[in-house]
């Protein structure tokens, strides 16, 4: 029996003993493919210093091309949602700092405006009233706080623009998930699942517990109470529900989200609106 074997170093004819008995200009379709048991034997021939340069350059070319082509919507979505999460943290951190700083000058503002974004806006627009327990300050000292407030405001805007952008790509790429989960939770699901493809392959029970891995491991190892939900906990339906119903809703929601992922991955119909209305009727 003779076999054909195509390799980065050429096309070869191999016999039953795994010996190379000839080369070809192109693969011969009439010959059988090399069985796996003989691969090691044939590849032994190529384990020579003189072939290394060619093996190196071929693999570099193939791998570079594959990397170039590997980037898709999943990557864009994951990078955007990760950036938004970090912006949230940074904004929170800096706004707290601004509150401390600005309260040396005008503490009543921070006291009365609890919303961060509104507070930052008001630092930039509101004048300090006469009546205040804040210290009197020179213009140059106030100006420094205002600089920080402007940067935070820019970060708020950036976050908002990212969200709009995310919504646009997600509505196109995964309309069902986006409709049922919402943009933020939907994107976080993709982030945790690494890709739409992977998300579509996962069982609903995994999606239900996405983001609760730590609690799940603890449960499996020590027998502590099993978690009922991960990231989907943030979903409106669960947030609004009574505590005792949440576990059940989480299960049903995860089921539907899993269906949505499959619909989106296999480019199926748009059904999420029905699913959402169903769920709202049942649990809303």
């Amino acid at each position, binding site marked *: 029996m003779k076999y054909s074997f195509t390799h980065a170093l050429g096309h070869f004819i191999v016999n039953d003993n795994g010996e190379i008995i000839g080369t070809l200009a192109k693969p011969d379709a009439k010959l059988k493919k090399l069985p796996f048991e003989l691969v*090691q034997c044939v590849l032994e021939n190529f384990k020579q210093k003189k072939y*290394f340069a060619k*093996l*190196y350059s071929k693999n*570099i070319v193939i791998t570079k091309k594959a990397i170039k082509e590997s980037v898709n919507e999943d990557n864009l979505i994951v990078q955007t949602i990760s950036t938004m999460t970090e912006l949230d943290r940074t904004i929170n951190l800096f706004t707290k700092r601004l509150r401390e700083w600005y309260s040396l000058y005008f503490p009543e503002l921070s006291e009365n405006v609890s919303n961060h974004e509104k507070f930052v806006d008001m630092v930039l627009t509101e004048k300090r009233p006469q009546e205040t327990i804040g210290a009197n300050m020179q213009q140059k000292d106030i100006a420094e706080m205002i600089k920080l407030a402007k940067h935070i405001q820019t970060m708020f805007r950036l976050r908002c623009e990212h969200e709009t952008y995310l919504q646009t790509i997600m509505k196109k790429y995964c309309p069902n998930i986006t409709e049922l989960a919402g943009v933020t939770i939907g994107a976080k699901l993709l982030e945790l699942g690494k890709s739409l493809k992977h998300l579509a392959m996962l069982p609903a029970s995994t999606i239900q517990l996405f983001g609760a891995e730590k609690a799940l491991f603890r449960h499996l190892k020590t027998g502590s109470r099993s978690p009922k939900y991960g990231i989907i906990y943030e979903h409106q339906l669960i947030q609004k529900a009574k505590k005792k119903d949440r576990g059940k809703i989480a299960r049903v929601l995860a089921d539907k989200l899993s269906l949505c992922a499959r619909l989106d991955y296999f480019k199926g119909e748009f059904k999420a609106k029905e699913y959402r209305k169903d769920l709202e009727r049942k649990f809303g």
Partner: protein
Amino acid sequence: MKPIPHKIFGIYTDKRRIYTKNVFPGKIHFEEKTVKDGPIEYREFDPRRSKLAAMIMKGCTNIGIRKNDVVLYLGSSHGYTPSFVSDMVEEDGFIFGIDPAPRVMRDFVFLAEKRNNLVPVLADAFHPETYMDRVCAVDIVYQDVAQRNQTAIFVKNCKMFLKKGGYGLLAVKARSIDITKKPKQIFIEVRTQLEKEFTVIDYRILEPFEKDHCMIIIKK
């Protein structure tokens, strides 16, 4: 103290730490510490970052890797450990780094462009048929993939690419096989499975460097 040769080929030691001799002096990729001795540069090989280094620190005396060896490295990631294996096999050795994750392979490609005895292959080691047409037979199979089916992946690749008499090194992460079982029990199961196919020549638990990991070395 200057590093002196360790029992293991290609490894140097100052009694506390281990090093490799940089085959490409001046090229540092992972912020590793270096020790200079004239034109020779030693790169510190950190057992907390590499299971191979941990295995050596745990007293393993034969890891099988020699100068000029060809290595199939499964789970090459960013290339930390592969870069040290690259030092050990030297310029005339050759290492195929297999990893299916484009993000880490991107770093590995840049590394391979600086060390031309490293070869990047973006592929899933569970499907060796997808890369058997661009590698050659090897003297060593090293695997660290942290996957549930890691034993099957290892056996498959050793059968397909490892020469007779070659060595296989398998890092086992108990948690990715079964979180509910005791790590020791998993290690024994994996070892038993490997003994059916090869000769097991070393087995060590990598504690305290890596939690719930062991390394098994086989000979085909």
